[in-house]
């Protein structure tokens, strides 16, 4: 057999060598029609509380073919395209998050906070392009695949108690959307490494080489995301390609560099930073496979407004013009590298985006953007109309209440002054998913508006409730509320009973408590997107993402509910003691039944002791009356005869009953075997 197999083995590489140019040619021809594109971008943004937001955005596009199982991808990760093909995914978003986005300080009304501020742990939603009855099966398979792909316990989302099908909060994909979260999931480098593997350059070159693990995991907030969408051809709207967006959002605290260079010796000045100081690395060139490789610096509306104020106040200040045109802005801070381009948002008091294409920097010259503040500036990020927070009420382990409170921010005051003439209404969507062991009484839903209890129907426009089913499905509540803009605060509260689980259903650290996933508060009327002037010339995916119209979304805190635990140590004791009680019941009842049969006479005598005396007396009287003379002797034969008759009466019945009991016992024995 071996020599026989040799000739084909020898010829195969030869033929392959011959065919290789042809193959390559065909591939080039094939891909020339539809290009796979990859772009890498980094957005840096100083945050009001002396922190830096770094937002990496990698976008990978691939055309979608019918037979793409056999397809070769240049840049696009094959595992993802297989996933899409196999499970017919229309859209999907997977995020791994550690830390909590601080909506109050870091803003809640911009694209980054709406898209990239995620609840702690793992969040996954997916829209499938399959018939409704197959959606659940696809979801289960998808969770398992992702779990393997990202080294995370996403497979826990397979159980029907963990996912739900919201309809109004995400895209309106009727019935084919599934949403699940794992609040307890710990996120670590083992999740980041497979995520980086999906990038063509991994973290060897380009912007991703900045991802120094210690500095990323030291961050205050860290969220890595994978977002899959289908790009549709403009002509017919059919699916033409897959767009994979991988983002990593990190909030870092730069080391204070002001200490040594204190020409403005004020503690209030924001810390200056550079890429090398926050990541410990510099960008040493772009990823050559990337079509686009940009770094952006974003100054948000609040900061720009403050800078303008500062400029007005200190016109005499000598501005060292590092920026190409806009001297006003740079009076507040100094950039170490001159930006190539500047994008300004439409409207007054708008944010500014500085663009640095990495392409311009040679391999020898390392790109290290630095920002040093010259004046103390205090500003605030734009906020969502309401701060949403959620808390638990009540004590003890029997019942409690969940309260979602919405507090208006300066943003709603702006709305009120804008539309003073017509009655301004603000739509708020609330999605609350509760696990089944938190048994929510939906009829106890209460709404307090401006600290006064109000009738729910005045504010609730639509409501969708799927009550939880024990060990089958979680409870889900979707609310569409309409609040007047001048409202100061609103509190939604709902009562629940804490469930009791089977001993096997408790996690190993049962006394830590159970997590209730974040509620999602969205404002569909408002648009979080930014509008920049030069739309035409920028083909940057990050910019188009920022400009995308999207609702403002915010997540509330994860709640920790302590549940009562049974005693884990002694199940055998409980089983044996309970069985003993049942045996006691059974045995004693049987005993009573049996003994009464056996002691029929004595019992009858006992029972009728009083009666028998009467009986005898009456009989005596009767007989005395009948016979006309007192006769004592009759009583003894009568009693003896009665006893004998009763005993003879009983004995066959006794046998019958014993037989019956024995029969039951045998049947029982047979059955329990």
């Amino acid at each position: 057999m071996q020599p026989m197999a040799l000739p084909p083995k020898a010829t195969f590489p030869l033929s392959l060598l011959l065919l290789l140019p042809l193959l390559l040619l065909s591939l080039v021809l094939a891909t020339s029609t539809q290009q796979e594109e990859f772009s890498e971008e980094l957005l840096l943004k100083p945050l009001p509380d002396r922190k830096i937001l770094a937002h990496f955005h990698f976008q990978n596009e691939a055309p979608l073919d019918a037979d793409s199982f056999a397809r070769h991808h240049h840049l696009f990760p094959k595992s993802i395209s297989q996933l899409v093909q196999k499970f017919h995914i229309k859209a999907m978003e997977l995020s791994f998050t550690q830390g909590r986005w601080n909506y109050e300080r870091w803003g809640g009304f911009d694209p980054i906070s709406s898209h990239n501020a995620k609840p702690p742990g793992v969040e996954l939603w997916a829209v499938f392009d399959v018939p409704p009855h197959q959606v659940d099966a696809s979801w289960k398979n998808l969770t398992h695949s992702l779990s393997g792909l990202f080294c995370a316990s996403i497979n826990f989302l397979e159980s029907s108690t963990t996912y739900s099908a919201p309809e109004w909060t995400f895209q309106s994909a009727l019935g084919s959307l599934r949403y699940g979260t794992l609040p307890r999931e710990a996120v670590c480098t083992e999740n980041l490494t497979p995520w980086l593997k999906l990038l063509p350059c991994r973290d060897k070159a380009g912007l991703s080489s900045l991802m120094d693990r210690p500095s990323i995991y030291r961050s205050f907030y860290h969220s890595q995301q994978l977002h899959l969408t289908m790009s549709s051809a403009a002509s017919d709207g059919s699916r033409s390609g897959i767009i994979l967006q991988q983002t990593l959002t990190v909030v870092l605290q730069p080391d204070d560099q002001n200490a040594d260079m204190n020409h403005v010796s004020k503690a209030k000045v924001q810390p200056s930073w550079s890429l090398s100081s926050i990541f410990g690395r510099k960008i040493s060139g772009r990823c050559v496979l990337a079509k686009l490789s940009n770094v952006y610096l974003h100054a948000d509306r609040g900061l720009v407004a403050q800078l303008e104020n500062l400029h007005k106040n200190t016109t005499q200040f000598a501005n060292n013009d590092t920026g190409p045109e806009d001297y006003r802005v740079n009076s507040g801070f100094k950039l170490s590298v001159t930006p190539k381009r500047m994008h300004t948002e439409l409207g007054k008091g708008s944010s500014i985006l500085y663009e640095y294409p990495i392409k311009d920097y040679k391999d020898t010259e390392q790109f290290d953007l630095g920002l040093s503040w010259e004046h103390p500036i205090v500003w605030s990020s734009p906020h969502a109309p309401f701060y949403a927070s959620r808390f638990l009420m009540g004590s003890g382990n029997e019942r409690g209440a969940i309260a979602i409170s919405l507090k208006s921010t300066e943003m709603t005051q702006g709305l009120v002054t804008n539309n003073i003439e017509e009655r301004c209404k603000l739509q708020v969507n609330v999605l609350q998913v509760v696990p089944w062991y938190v048994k929510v009484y939906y009829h106890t839903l209460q709404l307090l508006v401006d600290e006064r209890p109000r009738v729910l129907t005045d504010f609730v426009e639509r409501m969708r409730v799927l009550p939880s089913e024990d060990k089958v499905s979680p409870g889900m509540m979707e609310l569409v509320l309409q609040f007047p803009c001048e409202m100061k605060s609103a509190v939604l509260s709902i009562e629940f009973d804490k469930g009791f689980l089977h001993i096997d259903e408790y996690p190993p650290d049962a006394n830590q408590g159970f997590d209730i996933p974040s509620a999602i508060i969205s404002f569909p009327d408002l648009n979080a997107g930014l509008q920049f002037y030069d739309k035409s010339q920028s083909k940057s995916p990050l910019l188009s993402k920022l400009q995308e119209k999207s609702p403002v979304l915010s997540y509330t805190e994860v709640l920790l509910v302590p549940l009562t635990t049974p005693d884990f140590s002694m199940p055998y004791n409980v089983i044996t003691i309970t069985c003993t009680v049942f045996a006691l019941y059974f045995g004693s009842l049987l005993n009573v039944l049996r003994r009464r049969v056996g002691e029929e006479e004595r019992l009858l005598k006992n029972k009728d002791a009083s009666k028998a005396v009467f009986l005898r007396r009456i009989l005596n009287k009767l007989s005395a009356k009948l016979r006309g003379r007192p006769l004592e002797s009759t009583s003894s034969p009568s009693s003896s005869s009665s006893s004998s008759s009763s005993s003879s009466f009983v004995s066959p019945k006794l046998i019958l009953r014993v037989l019956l009991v024995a029969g039951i016992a045998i049947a029982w024995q047979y059955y329990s075997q």
Partner: protein
Amino acid sequence: MTKKKKVPWFWTWVIGSVVFRLILLYFPKNLNLSSRPEVSTPLTSIRRLAEGYWLKQSSVSPYAGSMYHGSPLLLTLLGPLTVKRIEGQPDHLLCGLVFVIADVVSAMLICAAGEKLQVAYSSSLQLLGLRDLSENSERLPSGDFAALVYLWNPFTIVACVGLSTSAIENLMVVLSLYGACSRLAPLAAFGWVMATHLSLYPAILIIPVILLLGYGPDAPPRKLFCQKNRLEVGNSSSSDSYSEEKAKNQLKVANVFSWRPVVSFLLWTLLWSSYILVLCSIYVQQYGGLQELFKRTYGFILTIQDLSPNIGVLWYFFAEVFDFFRNFFLIVFHGNILLMLAPLALRLNHRPCFLAFVYIAISSMLKSYPSVGDSALYLGLLGLFAYELKDMQFSFFLLSGYVGVSLLSPVMHNLWIWRGTGNANFYFATAITYACFQVRYLYSF
């Protein structure tokens, strides 16, 4: 013979109990009784009923989710009352009034059934020729006594004020027993069908009800008649034949199992149950039909899915038992109830009322979600058998046991659930003790 001899101040006591209940109902937040595990089980909780009604109103199936497991008829009856408010009154007042009325009606029915029993007792004594005895002995008005025990039993009061629907289940059980005692087949059938529909376990009462309809209320064992007959025959051999004839006739009357009321009972049962099924199917038509309903009510009762604590022992048992034994133990525990039916029926067939009482006690001890409302029923019925009470051993021990357990159980529950200092085992221990006392209590008859 049938002169009405009431317990002195009977009506005063009845009114007193009603007033007491109303006063308790007026307390704010209902004294939190409606969420006590002793009072409201997943089957009888008024909050769950309100949730079911709310779901129904928002056009979701009331059985969606695992909140409500009761009857749809109860939902239509009590549901609107859970939402209705009277200005300035406690929220739950209307519901509370329904339960107070249910309690009073069941007490009245117990009282009437007691009178029937008493009449039957004295007539059977007459038959035995113990006229003197029946006239001479001081008769305790056991019906009134039982009614007062039922009304003033702390368990009943707590269950009523805690708005547990077990008051209505009890009413149906008592209605069925009363109907059977007074040989009103339609009434007995209605009570039995409703009670079975509401909580499934009263299904076993069909045996005593049939016996009651067939034989009439409790009588001394037929052996006694035989015995007496023989005695009489033996004694009056020399006497005139007339008295002998009479005795034989009387014996026949006492012993014969009359089929007519039983057949009519079965027919009425058929009628009522089909009626209720039709009503239910109309109600749950859009939500999966009767199959879903049975799964959600009877299935829930039989499979013990809810493991929240109650005064029984099964919740903790099934929280701890290994999953692969679960089905086995479910069968064993429910089999335990059924197993004793036939022997007890054979043993006590001459006293169907007492048989019914024993059945109620057994089922309230072994049922999957017991509450104090169930105990209230059998403790109330106990009053009907005041004569047995006289012979009862360890009655003081049992009474103090009941008192002790009912005081300790809330303490242990508080330690475990609210303070977090105790352990589930403490509470379970009180439940075990309670079960033991119930066993002992049963055993003492």
